[in-house]
């Protein structure tokens, strides 16, 4: 019956498509954004365990340790290796005299453990050269880019051989890398630990994290417990540290609320449009529902009819909305937009649309279930 009423049929599908699009798109952006919060942890695949000050709440919450802590950690039984990592925000002076804050990562001088996951130009070992730094591609082509030689022209991306001043220290670009997008938008600069501590302002403590590998066969969880007990420091597996970071942003930032409002709005608008249109359709066709009842259709049959129609429009709306959201994510894939559409989000959006059509259909179902078939003889 509903398909025959083109206006209402398309109206409900449009409403559900809009709801599905909004719910899927906003949830995907939210997930993408939250994934970025621990992007730096994901990029460091080699260590099993991150050791840090017990008060650290997330990856960018740096509470430096004394350098001697590294040796204490290395002495814990079960540690295969432990290397230092510097992480800090330092000021870089550009060729045009502007300053740009950079996210500097200082890697163990000997092993260079913790380097970027993908090198686009140069090699990681080039960091051993004097004053060497490796810059991420996005930073090199945007915030650290050199001004155009032509007035009004496009900035020239930083290349191997270019120099910067980091905190008044000369730094030479020896490589361009690609890193996961993080929550911070600053350029990412890799260098050695010793050079990073030279770049950094003088402080008594400069060791941000210690990266630890467990000996083969030893459960990392067991080792984290051991490190905590023997050093009094916080030790987390990579996944635990991601969870810690994720939970911090969930708890202390307005991100979940903002996205929650957008998703909730999609849900409410979808329910309102679909519910009202569905109910209007039922009211306009109440005579036919009455006729069917008079002719012997049980409430069960009419219930199945309504649910089938709701399921049809729900499936179409869900599919179109998810398709549109996927297209949106695909088209904006190479931009700053954080978009991560997971299987769980598809299930979430499907459940939300399912709930919308159930709520929409319920009002109509109630009307039809309580309908007296005698209505068929009224005007």
């Amino acid at each position: 019956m509903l398909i025959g009423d083109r206006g209402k049929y398309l109206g409900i599908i449009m409403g559900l498509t809009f709801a599905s699009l909004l719910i899927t798109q906003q949830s995907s952006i939210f997930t993408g954004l939250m994934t970025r919060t621990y992007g730096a942890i994901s990029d460091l695949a080699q260590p099993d365990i991150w050791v840090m000050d017990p008060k650290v709440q997330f990856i960018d919450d740096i509470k430096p340790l004394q350098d001697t802590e590294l040796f204490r950690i290395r002495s814990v039984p079960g540690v295969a290796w432990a290397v230092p990592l510097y992480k800090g925000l330092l000021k870089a002076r550009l060729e045009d005299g502007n300053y740009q804050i950079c996210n500097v990562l200082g890697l163990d001088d000997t092993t260079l453990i913790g380097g970027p996951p993908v090198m686009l130009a140069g090699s990681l070992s080039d960091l051993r050269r004097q004053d060497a730094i490796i810059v991420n591609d996005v930073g090199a082509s945007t915030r650290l880019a050199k001004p155009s030689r032509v007035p009004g022209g496009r900035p020239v991306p930083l290349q191997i051989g270019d120099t910067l001043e980091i905190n008044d220290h000369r730094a030479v670009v020896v490589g361009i890398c690609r890193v996961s997008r993080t929550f911070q938008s600053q350029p990412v600069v890799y260098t050695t630990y010793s050079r990073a501590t030279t770049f950094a302002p003088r402080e008594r403590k400069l060791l941000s994290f210690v990266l630890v590998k467990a000996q083969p066969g030893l459960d990392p969880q067991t080792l984290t417990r051991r490190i905590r007990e023997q050093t009094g420091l916080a030790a987390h597996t990579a996944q635990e540290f991601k969870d810690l970071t994720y939970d911090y942003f969930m708890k202390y930032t307005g991100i979940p609320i903002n996205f929650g409002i957008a998703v909730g709005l999609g849900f409410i608008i979808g329910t309102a449009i679909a519910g009202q249109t569905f109910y209007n359709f039922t009211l306009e066709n109440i005579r036919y529902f009455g006729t069917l009842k008079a002719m012997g259709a049980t409430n069960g049959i009419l219930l199945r009819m309504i649910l089938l129609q709701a399921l049809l429009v729900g499936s179409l709306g869900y599919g179109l909305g998810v398709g549109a959201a996927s297209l949106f994510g695909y088209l904006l894939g190479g931009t700053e937009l954080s978009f991560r559409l997971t299987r769980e989000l598809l299930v979430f959006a499907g459940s939300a649309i399912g709930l919308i059509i159930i709520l929409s259909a319920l009002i109509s179902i109630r009307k039809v279930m309580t309908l007296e078939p005698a209505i068929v003889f009224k005007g």
Partner: protein
Amino acid sequence: MAVSPTDPAVYCRAVTKSYVSGPTKVMALQGVDLEVRLGELLMLVGPSGCGKTTLISVVAGILDHDEGECLVFQEDLRAMGRNSKTLFRGQNVGFVFQAFNLLPTLTALENVSIPLLLLGLKKTEALSQAREMLERVGLADRLQSLPAQLSGGQAQRVAIARALVHRPRLIVCDEPTSALDAGTGQKVLEVFRGTALAEDRALIIVTHDNRIFNFADRIARMEDGRIVAVESQVAH
């Protein structure tokens, strides 16, 4: 329940029905006595608001009366549960409405097959029987037409086919000719007498249309919720 040929199809004694409309209580039926026999076409006539529609609603089992006794094929519908009554209607009652009430998105053939599908017949069998019935009412060439593509007379014939296709024993019609012109109305009644009326079936037609009175076996006149006269017509 088995019904002998001598039993009335419909038996009503002292049937009352009231509606509450705001602060006032309206007595739609005030002690109706009525019998409708098998093989009979009974017309129920009377002024607007006299209770005709309420009476056929009670008889058809889509409305419960307040007091009195109303047996349809010896069954007390008021005593039945909701589902039993729905099933009883599906098997025993055919409806024809003033506004046809054909489902607008279904073809004539699909509309006529509905009662059979509701009784659980397979779709192919239901469509086959529906086609047969539409041929009997002279609409073999309009099987795939939507209601909007049919004339008033054709739509009412589809409605009649839908009311008859499952071979109900009682057919109730509410003003079946009021939306039709005189000629078409006469033809529709001819279809009723020719196709619908049988020895094991009773027809009740509510009408204002005195042009079709000559098709009735008996005419029951209602006023103020009561049957005030029952007139027999000349044998057809």
